[in-house]
């Protein structure tokens, strides 16, 4: 974009694409537009100045002529009306964004690349050292079993014949329930047949251990 300020153009043909004119005077000039960036005219005066379209700008009008020749009168008339009203049927496609980083600071760029390269190098060395060079030290040595085996000799030994062992145990318990005997001689605690104990409880109620002194 070229900026022109306070200039007088006399009998010249000017390509105006993208230019900015401020307080300029145009006398007997031709303003040529080729479809590039829009020019701007601020506080300018024009005397016997003509408009000329070239390149893509001329082709655009020719395109409208072609469409008109194809019978698209309504569409073409609509475009012309919109140009006159200032409401243009421009493309609805999103405009491209300007570049976010357009500088030429190559030293900074190299620095950033170097930092990223160093980070990737460190990660690569770590992976190589941990998984390739010393895999047994870093992985296998620190692993723990998911369960601890219980040695068999710690478990209680089962009798060879469970039925006989059960009968012996039941007989012993039945003897205790049906006979008299000492539970603890020193403490003078004895056991009596359970039927007798039940009758005593029915007749006398629960014994008072505190009152009898044990």
């Amino acid at each position, binding site marked *: 974009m070229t900026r022109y300020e306070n200039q007088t153009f006399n009998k010249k043909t000017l390509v105006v694409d993208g230019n900015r004119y401020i307080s300029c005077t145009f006398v007997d000039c031709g303003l040529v*537009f*080729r*479809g*590039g*960036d*829009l*020019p701007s*005219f601020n506080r300018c005066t*024009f005397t016997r100045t*003509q*408009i000329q*379209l070239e*390149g*893509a*700008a001329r*082709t*655009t*009008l*020719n*395109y*409208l*002529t*072609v*469409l*008109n*020749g*194809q*019978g*698209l*009168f309504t*569409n*073409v*008339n*609509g*475009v*012309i009306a*919109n*140009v*006159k009203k*200032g409401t*243009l*049927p*421009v*493309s*609805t*496609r999103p405009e491209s964004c300007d570049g976010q980083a357009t500088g030429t600071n190559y030293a900074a760029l190299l620095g950033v690349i170097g930092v990223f390269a160093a980070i990737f190098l460190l990660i690569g060395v770590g992976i190589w050292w941990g998984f390739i060079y010393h895999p047994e030290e870093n992985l296998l040595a620190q692993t723990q079993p998911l369960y601890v085996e219980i040695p068999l000799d710690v478990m209680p030994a089962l009798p060879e014949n469970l039925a006989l062992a059960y009968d012996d145990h039941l007989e012993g318990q039945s003897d205790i329930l049906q006979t008299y005997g000492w539970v603890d001689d020193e403490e003078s605690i004895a056991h009596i047949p359970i039927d007798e104990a039940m009758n005593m409880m029915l007749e006398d109620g629960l014994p008072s251990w505190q009152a009898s002194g044990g």
Partner: protein
Amino acid sequence: MEKMESKIFRNETVIVDNTQFVDCDFEGASLLYQGGALPTFEKCKFVGVSLQFGDAAANTLQFLSRLRVGGFSPAVDRLLESVRKPK
């Protein structure tokens, strides 16, 4: 120039620059012109089409519109009316 022949464009945006359309149908399509090489249409049918302009073509229409507002309405109108006159 690319050649499109016996195609149907239905409810889509068609970039027409630099294209030769032959025996094509445009149904509800949007013709997008961006100021490139002039397209040609031979034996084509248009139903419910709309026009869109981008890049240089849009710039051109905007340029004419601004000039018209800025005092060049006779010149701009002459250019626009030339479109509707058969060559």
